[in-house]
């Protein structure tokens, strides 16, 4: 030791000093090792948590497209006016100082002259305790007021500039300041292009404000296909999220109905995050993108925009305030080409939330229930359209289609027929007389089909209905569709003999059973395509939202066969012919859908619903066309309509008209079976 060697001459105190100094440095060194080497992770972490705030940035939501790539739901830019608090913070200080000075002088502090030397000396001896003129709590209030003054001044100037009253309450500002100081304060959420122009003009500028562009869900066709698309809602709870702790979250939406809900995860994409560097006062200093958001995937549906528009327009011509549904299927593969439910709503209005008044006056109206998807969630008695099932069961039971059956007149109304089950009388809408299968079908004779149904028996009838998968989910992937909306008679109960003949008679003509419009469309398709039951397909594929990204396209296979009907072709041909004649024959109930150059085949239905003190009707038209090479199935359902033939057949006619006018060539993008 250089120093020690020279201290060997009896200078013990110096040696001690050297030792103590060395020891002191060793202690400091140990302390530094502890903090900088051993504790560095902990301190680096504290540095992170105190100076970086993680912000969750939602991804751009994927679009929903029709089968040709036309947009049903997309994103549109929205301009938002933000106030950046950190840019105003020097003004806060200035304003605070001003207010404080005012208060101090009002309380007489500034009025006193600077005390002379003697006074200062004496005051020291007297040990006077000067009480602060402004208490800590009051001081806090002064800061609050100063901030509010500055920000509300900015807001007021913006307000006069855009010519629109803007309100900012002190508590709003304080909440934002206390909870999310590092984020800009949104003052105006929707700026019109004119307002943007006014605010970005060169001659006018203002410190602390900025216009932010953000994508917001938009539905370019308004209420079109609203029940299929569904709607969004502000997502405020993130309980489903992984543990990644965010300090702040930017506004995000989640689907709460329709495809928006069913494919929420895919459409939403993956939220990104950015880190905001904040200073010790909590204001933003800078920001970095920690992980970019991955945009949601685009959902390509099987819907055809033109056909959907035609279907909705056609349905709305019933009376403008109708409740009903239209489904158009491709009978060759089960693709849902159009699906309309009325009354519809505009999903776009859910983005900013629906007002209480709007909810009570529009949405929460009994019977109207615009949010209900009548296509898949509405369960209705099929009425006479169910006679197609009864017909098939009867034919398979050996019914001779050419043998005539005599319908007795109704004693109460001799112009109409009636059927007697024991002492029970079931009225008919068709006149009495002789009916063969064809005539009974096109006049929709209840008596004929009750007779045929009773002969076929309950088990055969129920089994035939099950072959069309009535009473089972249709599996469209729409939320709610998995529930069994519609119900079938309980076979065990009936077989146990608790069913009286009257109930079975009613079952034969479409009572005692409910179906959804989509289920009925599947049934008609099956008759039309010669006996293949397809799963209805609504989603064609999910593809990447970024056209350049090479991500796998998730294709839903078209034409998935659910089961084969197993009926003999001549039976199906008989039914198809009967359906054609229902439209073609002058006495057919469906003649209102007759169309030149396009042979529509259909079956009408009018189900009467009687309850305690009310009587209502559900009217149907279940159809397909063209007869020669069946291609489309169209099912129309209207609640409280007049009759199937009178109310629903014309709706179907207009849809077929649209299909006919497009030509029989496949619409662009329509998938054809291999």
């Amino acid at each position, binding site marked *: 030791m250089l120093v020690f060697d020279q201290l060997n001459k009896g*200078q013990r105190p110096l040696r001690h000093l*050297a030792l103590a100094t060395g020891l002191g440095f060793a*202690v400091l060194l140990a302390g*530094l090792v502890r*903090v*900088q080497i051993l504790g560095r992770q902990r301190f680096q972490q504290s540095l992170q948590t105190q*100076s970086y705030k993680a912000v969750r940035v939602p991804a751009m939501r994927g679009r929903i497209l029709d089968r040709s790539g036309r947009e049903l739901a997309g994103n549109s830019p929205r301009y938002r006016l933000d106030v950046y608090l950190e840019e105003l913070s020097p003004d806060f200080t200035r304003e605070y100082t001003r207010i404080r000075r005012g208060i101090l002088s009002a309380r007489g502090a500034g009025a006193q002259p600077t005390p002379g030397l003697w006074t200062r000396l004496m005051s020291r001896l007297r040990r006077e305790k000067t009480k602060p003129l402004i208490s800590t709590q009051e001081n806090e209030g002064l800061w609050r007021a100063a901030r509010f003054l500055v920000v509300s001044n900015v807001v007021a100037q913006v307000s006069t500039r855009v010519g629109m009253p803007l309100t900012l309450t002190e508590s709003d500002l304080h909440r934002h300041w206390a909870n999310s100081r590092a984020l800009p304060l949104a003052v105006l959420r929707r700026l019109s292009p004119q307002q943007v122009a006014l605010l970005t003009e060169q001659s006018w500028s203002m410190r602390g404000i900025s216009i932010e562009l953000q994508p917001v869900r938009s539905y370019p066709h308004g209420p079109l296909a609203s029940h299929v698309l569904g709607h969004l809602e502000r997502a405020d709870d993130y309980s489903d999220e992984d543990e990644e702790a965010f300090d702040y979250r930017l506004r995000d939406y989640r689907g709460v109905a329709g495809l928006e809900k069913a494919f929420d995860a895919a459409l939403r994409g993956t939220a990104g995050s950015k880190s905001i560097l904040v200073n010790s006062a909590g204001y933003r200093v800078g920001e970095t993108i920690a992980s970019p958001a991955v945009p949601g995937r685009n959902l390509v549906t099987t819907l055809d925009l033109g056909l959907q528009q035609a279907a909705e327009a056609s349905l709305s011509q019933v009376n403008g305030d109708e409740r009903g549904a239209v489904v158009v299927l491709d009978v060759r593969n089960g693709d849902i080409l159009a699906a309309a439910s009325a009354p519809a709503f505009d999903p776009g209005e859910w983005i900013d939330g629906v007002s209480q008044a709007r909810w009570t006056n529009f949405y929460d109206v009994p019977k109207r229930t615009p949010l209900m998807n009548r296509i898949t969630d509405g369960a209705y008695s099929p009425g006479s359209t169910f006679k197609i099932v009864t017909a098939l069961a009867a034919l398979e039971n050996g019914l001779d289609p050419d043998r005539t059956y005599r319908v007795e007149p109704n004693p109460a109304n001799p112009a109409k027929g009636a059927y007697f089950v024991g002492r029970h009388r079931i009225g008919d809408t068709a006149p009495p007389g002789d009916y063969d299968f064809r005539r009974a079908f096109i006049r929709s004779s209840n008596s004929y089909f009750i007779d045929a149904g009773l002969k076929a028996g309950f088990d055969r009838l129920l089994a035939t209905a099950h072959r069309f998968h009535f009473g089972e989910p249709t599996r469209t992937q729409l939320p709610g569709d998995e529930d069994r909306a519609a119900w079938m008679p309980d076979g065990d109960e009936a077989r146990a003999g608790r069913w009286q003949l009257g109930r079975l008679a009613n079952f034969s003509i479409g009572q005692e059973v409910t179906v959804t419009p989509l289920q009925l469309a599947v049934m008609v398709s099956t008759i039309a395509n010669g006996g293949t039951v397809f799963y209805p397909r609504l989603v064609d594929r999910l593809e990447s939202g970024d056209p350049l990204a090479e991500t796998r396209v998730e294709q839903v296979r078209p034409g998935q066969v659910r089961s084969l009907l197993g009926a003999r072709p001549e039976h199906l041909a008989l039914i198809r012919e009967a359906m054609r004649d229902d439209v073609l024959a002058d006495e057919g109930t469906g003649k209102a859908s007759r169309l030149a150059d396009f042979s529509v085949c259909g079956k009408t239905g009018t189900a009467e619903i009687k309850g305690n003190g009310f009587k209502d009707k559900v009217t149907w038209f279940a159809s397909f066309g063209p007869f020669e090479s069946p291609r489309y199935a169209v099912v129309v359902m209207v609640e409280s309509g007049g009759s199937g033939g009178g109310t629903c057949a014309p709706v179907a006619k207009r849809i077929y008209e649209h299909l006919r006018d497009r030509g029989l060539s496949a619409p662009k993008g329509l998938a054809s079976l291999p």
Partner: protein
Amino acid sequence: MISVPSAQLNRRESGIEWPLWAAVLGLMAIGAAFIFSTTGTTEMARGVGWHSWTASRQVVAYILGLGVVAAFSFVDYARIARWSLVAYWLAMALLVGVYIFGTSRHGARRWLDLGPIQFQPSELAKLTFLFALASFLSRPAAELRSPALFAKGLALALFPFALILKQPDLGSALVFLPTTLVMMLVAGVPRRFLVKLVGGAALLVSLIVVDILVAPPGWRIIQLQEYQRHRLLVYFDASFAPRDSTPEQRLRGAQLKRQMSWNVEQAMISVGSGGLTGKGWGQGTQHKLGYLPRLGAHNDFIFSVIAEEKGFLGSVVVLGLYATILFTGIKIAGEARDRLGLLLASGVVTLLFTHVFVNIGMNIKLMPVTGIPLPLLSAGGTSVICSLIAIGILQNVHLYRRRY
């Protein structure tokens, strides 16, 4: 006794103590660089001219200090020591002056406002006290056995101690204790006196600690300022609320404690987050974002800025430079021509070491927070010039050392 010709004894030996000055220059470079890193960008942003930057003022203080040292090195320290008592009383007068005329910053009255420059007399008091005590103790060791003389020597220390304590500046005042102790030890004051001195000091410190931690509010023996009490409570990690307090008081106490321990916590985060190699010069976020106190980052907390930006390696370099100065100082003390030189050198070493230890210790929570500057690195003209003069004393003792 061998008679040595006086001319030979007083001969000015040529020779600058190079390791000492290399270390000093190194610390100066570091000081200027990191004061600029801490204050430069904000000052530039505010449009302050380069001549008014804190870093520039620091460099001016360095140059001034070096000038004073160079001037003094022409004069034998023994000659200077003759004026020690005059200087001592002058400094005491200035301390009293501070008490009456001084300007107050952040609740403490420590500065004398001399127009363009502000001057901190407590720094000067440390130096003059050093000279006064050294020349007082340089009498033959045998004389120091008298209790009266010991009391007189102690009084020399207690006078500035009390005045600075009153400012209030507890930290600066406590610096006098180890310095006095070491100088007396080196001078050969009998052990029994020193044991009493240490005992007295220990009693004082323990009284303060007990007073703060245990005694009920009415019992205060030593009147400390509220902020001093808080700093010590933070250091001992004790509750801010009295023992028999309501939950509400406790809550408020905890809040206050968080507030008060903020500086220490932030200094620790600075030092700790620097890790092994640091974030690089000018890259420290703790002071840039205002987590380190704006008013303290470039002076009392300059070490945490260096530690954050240069990491453990940077801290070790700083420690190494101080160690070089201090051990060279001890070596110089060992080679001193006479008792005065020995006492002066060992006093300077103790004084500097106390500053270094307390300041760096405060940055890593080994020591409670006090306003003691880090010699040469902390921004502040008075401190820099006085530190340089202290190191100049070492050089002077070296220059007029004995030759064998």
